[in-house]
């Protein structure tokens, strides 16, 4: 049995979610059909929509189920951009430490749809300072199409002051999309209080199924569709995944119940892991914000190593970790997030991310900390 320190990659599915999911898979009927079976499917789908809306302080009409976080992000960015482009609003503002789902979408629009990108520099904790956004919007007030930003950084766990960012966007009358994929389940989220016009979510990051996500859209927001067809949902076509939606709602329900105490418990384990790593490897440098931070995220640079070698050696011991950055063909890229935080490429290559969850135990953390010094030493002896 492996020790799992990669909850941010995907969250194990709790038994209750799996049972609910299997149960929902048994139903017959397309939620768009008019007959009894269809109505039953529709009922389950709409119940899930309502539950998710309620837990996230949104209206049910705001919840658009998608095939995952990446589709939601693509839909929000491209949809808003395409809608506003005809009015001369062609400039997308985003921090330079976003997830690739955002970066690659914007770069595609630059290349194929005459978009302009303004990459806003994040601070040394990967946080977008509100002043930076204000300046960026002031300089592009006429042309700004949308603002998009991570609620919480998926690599280093720093949490943006999204309400403040949304307030600023509102002042400039520019819609704002928030990528809340890594924040969901780890922070109390209120769509209404966030002030966002659009917000992207993914089910498998909280124990729901892979291939299920949601895009929350303010009822006043206008955007183009990404996927055309049967108009099953507002702005989004495609037969609804009823079981996926039901399982997503169940997973969110588990995360939302007793959230405050769960977060406190998780943060305690996180701080223990941080303290222990620094005790056994004093050279290790923790990255990301200390206070505004996801409770399950631990991110270190281990100077003189590369993250992929550390990962390899930990994996040989049955411990699952991540470099945190994207992989191309099985090779981790040097993190653009860590570089955006001001580290040169060589130092950034030493990044390693440990993400923990409710099921992580102290003995598991102790076992990791026990093997870490020797692994660090071996990894330091491997060139490049």
């Amino acid at each position: 049995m492996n020790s799992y320190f990669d909850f941010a990659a995907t969250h194990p599915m709790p038994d209750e979610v799996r049972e609910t999911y299997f149960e929902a898979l048994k139903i017959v009927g397309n939620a768009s059909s008019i007959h009894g079976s269809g109505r039953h499917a529709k009922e389950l789908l709409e119940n899930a929509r309502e539950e998710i809306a309620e837990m996230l302080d949104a209206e049910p009409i705001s919840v658009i189920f998608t095939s995952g976080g990446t589709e939601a992000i693509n839909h929000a960015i491209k949809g808003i951009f395409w809608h506003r482009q005809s009015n001369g609003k062609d400039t997308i503002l985003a921090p330079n430490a976003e997830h690739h789902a955002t970066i690659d979408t914007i770069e595609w629009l630059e290349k194929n749809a005459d978009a302009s990108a303004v990459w806003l520099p994040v601070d040394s904790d990967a946080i977008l300072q509100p002043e930076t956004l204000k300046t960026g919007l002031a300089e592009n007030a006429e042309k700004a199409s949308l603002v998009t930003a991570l609620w919480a950084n998926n690599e280093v766990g720093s949490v943006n002051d999204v309400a403040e960012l949304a307030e600023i966007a509102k002042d400039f009358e520019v819609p704002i999309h928030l990528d809340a994929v890594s924040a969901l389940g780890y922070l109390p989220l209120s769509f209404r209080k966030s002030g966002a016009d659009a917000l992207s979510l993914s089910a498998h990051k909280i124990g729901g199924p892979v291939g299920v996500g949601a895009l929350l859209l303010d009822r006043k927001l206008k955007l183009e569709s990404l996927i055309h067809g049967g108009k099953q949902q507002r702005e989004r076509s495609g037969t609804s995944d009823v079981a996926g939606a039901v399982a997503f709602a169940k997973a969110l329900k588990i995360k939302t119940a007793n959230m405050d105490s769960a977060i406190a418990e998780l943060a305690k384990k996180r701080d223990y892991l941080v303290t222990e790593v620094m005790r056994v490897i004093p050279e290790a440098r923790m990255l990301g914000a200390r206070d505004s931070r996801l409770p399950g995220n631990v991110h270190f640079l281990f100077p003189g190593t590369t993250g992929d070698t550390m990962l390899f050696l930990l994996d040989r011991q049955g411990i699952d970790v991540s470099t945190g950055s994207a992989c191309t063909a099985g090779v981790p890229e040097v993190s653009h997030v860590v570089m955006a935080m001001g580290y040169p490429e060589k130092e950034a290559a030493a990044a390693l991310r440990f993400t923990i969850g409710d099921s992580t135990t102290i003995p598991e953390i102790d076992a990791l900390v026990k093997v870490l010094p020797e692994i660090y030493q071996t990894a330091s002896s491997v060139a490049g």
Partner: protein
Amino acid sequence: MKVLAAMSGGVDSAVAAARAVDAGHEVVAVHLALSRMPGTLRTGSRGCCTIEDSQDAQRVANMLGIPFYVWDFSERFKADVVDNFIDEYKAGRTPNPCLRCNEKIKFEALLDKAIALGFDKVVTGHYAEVGEDSEGNPELFRANAYAKDQSYVLGVLNAQQLKHCWFPLGKDASKADVRAEANERGFRVASKPDSHDICFIPEGDTRGWLNEKIGLEDGDILDLEGNKLGTHQGASGYTIGQRKGLNIGYPAPDGKPRFVLSISPVNNTVTVGPKEALQIAEIVGIRPSFAGKTVDSIGEEFDCEVQIRAHSDPVPAIAEYFYDDSEGGQELKVRVRPNEPFDSVAPGQSAVLYIGERVLGQCTIDETVSAVLENSAIGE
């Protein structure tokens, strides 16, 4: 023993890894990423480097029940193989990038990393054999399957490297046997085509690729007397011994075809002449390496066989290692005189010396001496 199996995604490395697992070793599979921007699909006769090849390798590793990783050597590969290839061409030499990749990537970067990570051996699907002399020094031998023998491209390995190499396919009678075994083991790659082309040059278009990299410029085609016969499209795009594509408008006085005899990138000239002028009576090799014990009989002539291309036949020769002190230093070189002249040799090629089936070592051809012309430095 802890064994690292280097898996390209081809049939040979798949079978080699399987045999290492059968032998009861602790085996970990590694695929080498040699490009930051790998292609998605395999094209033409290339056997590695795409995502499809990586997946082929992973599928075999899964069947063998061994962990699979991709290690990124793209920067080293670019610096040590691709850039070196370009530089060599710019200098008018014809390098062998596969040999260079074995020297610098597979059996240096990869091997060093494997040893640092605690592995005892690296196993690959090369057709060659590692043995040991009476004193325990490692030795390298030709494969049993002569048609597939790859000892030439491994000739650059030294004793230290060979100590950690394992080539389980060395004793196989033929590639067909290896394919049959892969088929029996249920590997989908059993019928995957062999790779031939240079992996980093798409579509096998070396000249087009070089043109993109070094910007080939038109220049003069000269005869041996220095008379201009025509115009070429960039000296570095030609190979010694090349006959086609010269586009010289009129025939030679004797009516015989003309061949590229030499390339001078400095003057951007290509010198052509009759086939006989390609006959090389002697080569001098630099940077010799020894596939096992270093030769101690410096300054003594000895009989050997020499091979100057991956797929050419070895020829009997007399060789002698010597110290060249002309530049003030003491540089070890090797002079090789084949019993019958070589037919076209390009500086930059590797010459591998054999004593019977055993690889003695390798050197890079630096100078050639014509068998027929008095002025050996053709066209320079």
